[in-house]
């Protein structure tokens, strides 16, 4: 009796759920297109950053993609971690530290490849530290990564010589000019090597998330860690590995940022954790883990880059914080409306 009474409402529920899932699938592309459209209409001629013409000009798109390399790399790995229900607030500090160490090595005569490899190694170590605190010492992820946020930032600040704001050319040492090549020199279509490395990493992460056992395990752990462990998944090992992947991506992002700015700025990664969270939430990954998509996070990352670089051209810089904060809250609301229900 109760069943028959519920019958029509259930059909309606299914329909609304289907509609909701369609919206959920495509809304992010619409949002990106809308934002691009808005900025394209605005007059950007007078703005020095974009130089000639509109937002959709070749130069401005290339510039956007060049600066987007760090956040795209980082938020891709961040997605995997959030799918498994964990978080890493230290990514910004880790990126700064990697940038500083990379710049420091280049300044002291290392050539590109050894410096890159050693920075990647540092990334592995930083990720492993986070993994150790969270999975071995079982400190709550937020607290553990806040501690490492402070530690990494402190070390980065200590490496920078007293009285200067960054690792850069001094009276005694000059930063080699080639540090710029990785993130600025035209390799193909006007885009630098850093961008293609980012694309490659994202490609790998998308495959890892969709096609490999690591991606499935991450989702299983995020969905229900106890159930995942009972069915034989070694959650400690998997999440630890994910933290290391985030660490490696932070290293890549740091190298790209140091190369782009041709100096090692210990504050360059500040706010990166928020940018990553925004990208991941816009991409429809659930707060609590269990589902999400690396590919969609990339669209989310492009949205933030478009908004921040686009806004910089039309309003004074001191609106930036408010704009990013508002985008974050908007992303949370969108995410809440569309993702919260688990089917």
């Amino acid at each position, binding site marked *: 009796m109760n069943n028959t009474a519920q019958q029509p409402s259930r059909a309606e529920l299914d329909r609304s759920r289907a509609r909701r899932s369609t919206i959920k699938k495509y809304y992010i592309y619409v949002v990106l297109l809308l934002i691009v459209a808005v900025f394209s209409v605005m007059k950007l001629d007078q703005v020095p950053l974009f130089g000639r013409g509109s937002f959709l000009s070749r130069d401005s798109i290339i510039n956007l993609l060049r600066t987007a390399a760090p956040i795209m790399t980082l938020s891709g790995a961040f997605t995997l971690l959030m799918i498994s229900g964990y978080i890493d*607030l230290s990514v910004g500090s880790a990126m700064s530290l990697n940038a500083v160490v990379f710049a420091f090595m280049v300044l002291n005569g290392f050539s590109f490849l050894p410096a890159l490899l050693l920075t990647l190694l540092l990334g592995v170590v930083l990720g492993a530290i986070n993994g150790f605190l969270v999975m071995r010492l079982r400190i709550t992820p937020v*607290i553990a990564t806040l501690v*490492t946020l*402070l530690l990494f930032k*402190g070390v980065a600040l200590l490496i920078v010589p007293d009285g200067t704001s960054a690792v850069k050319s001094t009276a005694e040492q000059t930063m080699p000019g080639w540090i710029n090549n990785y993130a600025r020199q035209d390799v193909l279509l006007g885009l630098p090597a850093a961008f293609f490395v980012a694309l490659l990493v994202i490609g790998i992460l998308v495959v890892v998330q969709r096609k490999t056992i690591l991606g499935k395990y991450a989702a299983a752990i995020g969905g229900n860690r106890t159930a995942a462990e009972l069915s034989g998944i070694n959650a400690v090992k998997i999440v630890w590995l994910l933290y290391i992947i985030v660490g490696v991506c932070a290293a890549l992002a740091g190298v790209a940022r140091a190369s782009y700015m041709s100096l090692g700025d210990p504050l360059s990664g500040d706010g990166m*954790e928020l940018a990553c969270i925004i990208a991941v939430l816009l991409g429809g990954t659930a707060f609590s883990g269990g589902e999400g998509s690396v590919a969609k996070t990339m669209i989310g990352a492009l949205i933030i880059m478009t908004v921040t670089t686009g806004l910089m051209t039309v309003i004074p810089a001191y609106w930036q914080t*408010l704009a990013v*904060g508002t985008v974050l809250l908007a992303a949370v609301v969108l995410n809440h409306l569309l993702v919260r229900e688990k089917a």
Partner: protein
Amino acid sequence: MNAKLTHESAGASAGKGRKVSNETFITLFMIAVLVLVFAAAGLVVPNFFLPQNMINILTNNWFIVIVGIGVTFLLVTGNFDMSVGGVIALAGVLSAYFSQGANVSQNPLANGLGLPYGLAVILALICAMGIGGINAFFIARLKVPSIIITLGTMMLARGIAQVVTQGAQRNTSLPSVFGVIGTIAIPSTSIKVSVIIMVVLVIAAVIFEKKTVPGRRTYLIGANSQAAWLSGVKVTKHLASLYILSALLAGITGILLASEFKAGVSSRATGYEFDALVVALLGGVSINGGRGSVLGMFVGAVILSVVTTASTGLLLSPDWQFILKGAVTFFAILAQRYALERRKV
């Protein structure tokens, strides 16, 4: 019955026949740590035991202690408030903007609304509580993870402060009364009114926490919010009030700091959310909820103060402060857990 239940939950894992609850145990433990750190600092740092230095150590961190009260209560319920630093800046900037003279200068940063200082303060506090309200809505009502929302409202609050000050500060054409409350001190001492406000607020918070029904309910929510809800505690409403309270305390801090420096600075209190969290964790607040105390947080603040004063005394570069805070928090968490585990055996 409710009172009995909360009382038991506080001392539940303390074992039978023990008189001291886990909270008190951790507070005592951290006081012992404080004594050790203090003695160690006194041995290596010259002139550390001077009376003036002691007073400084106890009173230096008044702003962290005031915001720490709200952050502690929220941590006890298992929630974060990372927006306090932004709210401090917002309240300070707004109190300056509202009380600056209207149409007095060509410079837009010198023109305010020309309201009386008292009204300006009240309005600034209301705006601060508005940020708390946003936190409350998202976290208590929509059940969004608190860390994400409060990081967002931190940017929102600081963003508004930056827009109002055009990324700088408002420090001209302020009424003379603006700089009074933050600077006057008890005659012939260096103790400021802000410190007295801190002491009053800490005492009030301790009474609230130990002796009132809403205070104990805070712990019940943190220990098991489902159980709290089933036993009739209005969890959503309670959490919402705590967020608004936390924002109000941050607002008071912001107004006092703005008055002390006679300026509303948009970059004021950057990173204070970390400091508030660090002192709460040092004082034995558990993020898993249900454990912690304001008194412990105060001890934590003094420990942090001893450590930073000692590092300055040893002429370490200010860059060390991040590493010190990180390391101290890390070891405090491990030490507290170890002590609690040993206690259960």
